[in-house]
């Protein structure tokens, strides 16, 4: 594999001139940005601005038109055999808005199946690890519940545990709380805060500005396919530079 040994001060994620179009419509218009190791970046912006598309290009759920994305020293979008891409993907945790748990598997099977089938982890070790992860997200008692028996918040916490089971050095969150009832948002954010506190590198598309304020190291504000602001949260929230961001923030308050 074309792997450069990542040193500790090289960025975890590096986006260079990332462009993507759907037909004639350009969703991403040249994104240049970096996420440092251990950094938590919150991506916000109006709907249709390209934030979900952007985060989905990082593990190549979406292809890009031009530019490059390097994650943990690996050039994600260069041509490579499918096997290699699968391996890279397994090293990037991804949490979906709609959870996408496997409904035919119990919570613990959801978590254990990928380490077993993708990484070849022995069953006992995989289930031991899955039990640990369920404890970590506060669902040890739900190990044998099926997704259909869990609340949205519980499902999303299992989904986070499922992504963590592959031991990725970086986690991507695509609006993890948008599909949840308001009273369940807190429990998911609490798990994410815990992850951030443990030093996980995180990229998170969210509308939870409280989370951004408390946890993020930086906020990227995206509008019309470009990052037009990138600043620490206190700076972004108190002194947004662009009129677009000012309007976005004032709209959020109302």
């Amino acid at each position, binding site marked *: 594999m074309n792997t450069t040994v990542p040193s500790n001060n090289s960025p975890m994620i590096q986006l260079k001139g990332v462009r993507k179009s759907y037909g004639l419509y350009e969703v991403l218009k040249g994104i240049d940005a970096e996420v440092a190791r251990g950094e938590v970046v919150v991506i916000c912006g109006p709907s249709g601005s390209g934030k979900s598309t952007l985060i989905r290009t990082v593990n190549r759920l979406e292809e890009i038109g031009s530019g490059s994305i390097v994650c943990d020293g690996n050039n994600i979008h260069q041509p490579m055999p499918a096997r290699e891409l699968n391996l890279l*993907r397994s090293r990037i945790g991804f949490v979906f808005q709609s959870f996408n748990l496997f409904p035919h598997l119990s919570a613990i099977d959801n978590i254990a199946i*990928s380490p077993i089938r993708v990484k070849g982890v022995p069953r006992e070790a995989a289930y031991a690890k899955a039990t640990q992860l369920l404890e970590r997200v506060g669902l040890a008692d739900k190990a044998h519940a099926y997704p259909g028996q869990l609340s949205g918040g519980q499902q999303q916490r299992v989904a986070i545990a*499922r992504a963590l089971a*592959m031991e990725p050095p970086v986690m991507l969150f695509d609006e993890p709380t948008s599909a949840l009832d308001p009273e369940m948002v807190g429990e998911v954010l609490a798990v994410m805060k815990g992850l951030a506190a443990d030093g996980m590198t995180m990229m998170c598309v969210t509308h939870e500005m409280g989370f951004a304020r408390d946890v993020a190291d930086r906020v990227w504000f995206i509008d019309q396919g470009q990052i037009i602001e990138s600043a620490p949260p206190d700076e972004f929230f108190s002194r947004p530079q662009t009129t677009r961001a000012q309007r976005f923030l004032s709209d959020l308050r109302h």
Partner: protein
Amino acid sequence: MISDIVAIIRDYWLLLLIGQYPNGPLGGLAATLMLSVLAIAFAFPVSIALALARLSKSPFLNWPVTALVYFTRGVPLLMLILWGYFLVPLVTGANVPAFLTMLVTLVVYQGAFLSEVVRGGIVALGHGQMEAARALGHSYLGAMRYVILPQALYNVIPSIISVFVATIKDTTLGYVINVPDLTFAASQINNQLLTQPFQVFFILAAVYYVICWSLSRVAVLTERRITRRRAGTAPQPTAKSLKLAALTDQPS
């Protein structure tokens, strides 16, 4: 009337059961069951392969299989059987037993129908499941095997069973190329008795009904069992059985 039927069964039960065997090929109910089981056993994996090929982005897989499925679905089964029976020996010069011709034709024909059922089940699942599996590092086929198919096939169990039942009923068409199945045995009996076609073919219908009904029954029970397990209302596993399951269970 009923006594006629009882008399026919009493006189001809062995012929109905195994045909002329051991003086001729194995026939009767045994042949029908063998043909059905083999046809279903082969058609099922074939249908999954065909469905995956039709879903493939590669035109080399997609186009020929799409053509095959359309062709097969548009031509009567009887036509395919007769073609297979007369053309294959003509073209290849090989002497193909009628049983084999019938089996292969059934597998192709029902495989094509079943592949549409399977494909429908996969497509109906939506993108989320595949994306989630790929994001975790599963290969396309791995995701199919462990995530997509267990759900898709479960969701289309009723349609799959319909095709299985149709397959069993279609084995009767083997009669036209002299496959010595149950139908063939019944018509032999009818030719000997001459005067009791209703009674003879009533027995035939009853036997087919029992076979197909049993299969539907097994399917319903299987479906219920899976549903119960997935709803989690099945007995909760004990610590011991869990440990065993962790070691031996295939994720389904």
